[in-house]
């Protein structure tokens, strides 16, 4: 695929001006995500009331794909319930790894489908997934996750755990 398809204006815009950038001081959940191969390193903080995410923020150092993915994640999940968000996390991961065809199969991803092209860039899939993986870790009360080793979202072991 052509990188123009992935580096669309919406992604470049979220990279330039990330939404919900920073840390929530009164966070109820937080997690750190690390992609050691790239050096992507982000922190996600969120405030959960009941099972509803009232607010969330992220910050860190990362490539454009990761930063835009995190930024769009924050705008898309705010106000949703944890089960709804877990559904989005699953769908996002399946889209990025090529197991969900957003054009043909029903899904809730909406504008997040701009990341569909990442499936053709295997080396960049983890960049796009990292924020979602980190958010999932925060729900699980897991302080820190990595895209490598046992926690690798791309690993076959991830499916079998």
């Amino acid at each position: 695929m052509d990188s123009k398809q992935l580096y669309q204006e919406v992604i470049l815009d979220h990279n330039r001006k990330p939404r919900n950038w920073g840390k929530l001081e009164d966070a109820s959940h937080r997690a750190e995500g690390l992609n050691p191969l790239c050096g992507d390193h982000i922190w996600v903080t969120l405030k959960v009331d009941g099972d509803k995410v009232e607010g969330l923020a992220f910050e860190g150092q990362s490539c454009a794909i990761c930063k835009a993915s995190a930024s769009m994640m924050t705008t898309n999940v705010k106000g949703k319930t944890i089960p709804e968000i877990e559904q989005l996390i699953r769908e996002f991961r399946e889209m990025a790894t090529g197991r969900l065809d957003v054009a043909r199969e029903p899904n809730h991803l909406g504008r997040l489908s701009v990341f569909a092209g990442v499936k053709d860039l295997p080396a960049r899939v983890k960049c796009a997934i990292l924020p979602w993986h980190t958010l999932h870790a925060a729900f699980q009360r897991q302080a820190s996750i990595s895209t490598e080793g046992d926690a690798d979202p791309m690993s076959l072991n991830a499916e079998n755990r």
Partner: protein
Amino acid sequence: MSAVISPRALRPTVQAPFDLQRIRKDFPILELTVHGKPLAYLDNAASAQMPRQVLDRLIRYQTREHANVHRAVHTLSETATAAYEGARAKVQRFVNAREEREIVYTRGTTDAINLVMHGYGRAFLGEGDEVVVSQLEHHSNIVPWRMLCAEKGCKLRVIPCDDRGVLLLDEYARLLNARTRLVAVTHVSNALGTVNPMKQMIELAHACGVPVLVDGAQAVPHMPVDVQALDCDFYCFSGHKMCGPTGIGILYGKAEHLDRMQPYQGGGDMILSVTFEKTTYNAIPYKFEAGTPPIAAAVGLGATVDYLSAIGMDNIAAWEHELLAYATEQVGGLPGVRIFGTAPDKAAVLSFEVAGVHPHDVGTILNEEGVAVRTGHHCAQPVMQRFGVPATARASFSFYNTLDEVDQLVAGIRRVQKMFG
């Protein structure tokens, strides 16, 4: 009327000491296009491409000469053994080792370093002993020594470098002391391209009675290397970085060291209750070559050495120097581009950062322009830490690269800047 000078006209006038176009025809893979663009393969420090002469040798070996080596009396086993041992002799001459038996086949540089860690380090180093490495090392020349330190209670000491990526020799001299048992240093930095003053560093170590292991993975493909002139104790390199096959590398070791070292791996399906026969053990290099070796790869490495020798390592070094000078001028001249590694003596490696753009985005977009570069920490995280960046983009050249490919890289970086501007 003022003349408009194109960047192309500003190029240095290069008198190629060899026929570049003919050389390029030796490499079938260089004819590929990527995303409709001619491939500009600038990831040679990771792995270099293979010329037809080596490919042909592999096919000839596998179709007409293959059997297991050192095993049988039949014709093919003898042919295979002759080819395998013949390649060892070629490598010996290529790096000017004193004897053939000082050339040990390994899986690669990493394997060679691990062999020395196990066979020398674990046998002869103990608590409180010190191993000296440098800030510029690849992980493969750090991690084995960390493992040794953890096991034996040794200490790892690190030679620092300055902002150009040049090792501080005064600091190095101060690190050498009565507890120093080994210096393990890279000849050429894979992340920055710095060529370290190996001869001088080896002399300093030897003056303190300390042996030196040199990681030559990035040196052997790019310059003449003479292990006797260097007087190094160990020298490690990989076949695939010098246009040869993967899965084969070399440990050169002075016979006096290899002789007294412990074997790295037990061979064959030997039984635990039986001590290996002395004859299996005591002949070098075989005591380090347990199991069936990668015979075809070794034979291919022999052909690689022939190929490089025919071009001439001096010619290769000279042309790559031209490529580096031109690339440094063109890439370094782009606003917003920072080059890491500005040592006066450098191999053709250009590590850089485009302001405001993560190296992985740079790499993905350059790939769309047909330009293959490496992005990341280059298995040299301490180098990245020294320069305060998580990663860089790295263009690394080989003698088959052209000035046009440098232009293609520059055009690609301009596109990156436009997209992210």
